[in-house]
């Protein structure tokens, strides 16, 4: 197949290549999610389908913890909403770079949206331009989705055999920690994290981790407040 360097096919291929180093990082998350699914009482097929359909690691891990604790359907949905709110931000920022896609391809683009292809596509927008960026983005998304689903299935097969003494449930907060560290970029986001985290911990006694929602709202409010205070006071940070 003759492909010029600037064709959509070439951009898709470059996206697939760019996804490989990230795939190495996605696989352990997928394994942990598969293991968590088994611990929550799902079958290997069920948790794999969850990964294929929902395709949102942090939300899946929270949902599985809640399902394992016997939370209601409504609470699991609410947690999914709160933990996935960041996609509103990603989707808004990608509206322009992905403009060139047809209506049907936008469904696919939305379905494949994760932290990693969001960040890479936004970086490439200036280099590739509006015609090619969507194909680069979809190339990353296709590989990561497949890797996520396969890793979840392998984790689920593995999870049934791992002894309790290994304390593998600790891998779940470690995965969240790995997402949290790059999210703390400046003083206001550090304040948001500290307030969100401490309020959630203080309210840990509330049923079904509803303290998480209160903590999230408090943390967001604190971050906004700190940013406005910095602007108003003219301090650096």
């Amino acid at each position: 197949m003759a492909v010029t360097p600037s064709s959509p096919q070439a951009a898709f291929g470059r996206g697939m290549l760019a996804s490989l180093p990230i795939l190495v990082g996605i696989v352990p998350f997928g394994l942990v999610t598969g293991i968590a699914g088994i611990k929550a009482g799902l079958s290997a097929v069920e948790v794999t389908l969850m990964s294929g359909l929902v395709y949102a690691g942090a939300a899946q891990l929270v949902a599985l913890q809640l399902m394992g604790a016997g939370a209601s359907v409504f609470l699991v949905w609410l947690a999914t909403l709160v933990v996935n709110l960041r996609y509103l931000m990603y989707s808004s920022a990608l509206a322009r770079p992905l403009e060139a896609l047809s209506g049907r391809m936008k469904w696919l683009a939305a379905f494949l949206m994760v932290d990693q292809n969001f960040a890479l596509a936004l970086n490439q927008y200036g280099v590739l331009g509006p015609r090619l960026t969507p194909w680069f983005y979809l190339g990353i998304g296709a590989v990561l989705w497949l890797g996520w689903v396969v890793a979840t299935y392998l984790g689920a097969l593995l999870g049934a055999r791992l002894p309790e003494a290994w304390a593998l449930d600790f891998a779940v907060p470690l995965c969240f920690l790995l997402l949290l560290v790059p999210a703390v970029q400046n003083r206001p986001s550090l304040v948001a994290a500290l307030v969100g985290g401490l309020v959630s911990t203080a309210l840990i006694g509330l049923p079904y981790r509803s303290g998480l929602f209160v903590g999230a709202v408090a943390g967001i409010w604190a971050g906004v407040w700190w940013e406005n205070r910095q602007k108003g006071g003219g301090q650096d940070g």
Partner: protein
Amino acid sequence: MGDLELWITLLGMTLIAFALRYGPLVMLERFSLPPSLQQALRYVPAATLAGLVFPALLAPGGQWAIGLDNERLLAGIIAALVAWRFRNILLTLWVGMGALWLLKWMGV
């Protein structure tokens, strides 16, 4: 959780996750979010992810446990330093789990 309830849960999660990703992508060609909402959204990742991490480290048994006898807190702090310094997923998972196993074995 029964079979039907599980499928209703998964279907709802799928729709919620998709709607958040799809909505702005198609609607923002015509208008954009108000600046105050954009500002608030910037702090969603830090606030919610910390809300997931902190309780697992500071109160693993359901109550505040700030002290040297809380091996999950110590292992978590070590993992956080590794994550911050090296930005490496596998390394962080191994060091974090290894620190927890070592601390448990030492009976701290």
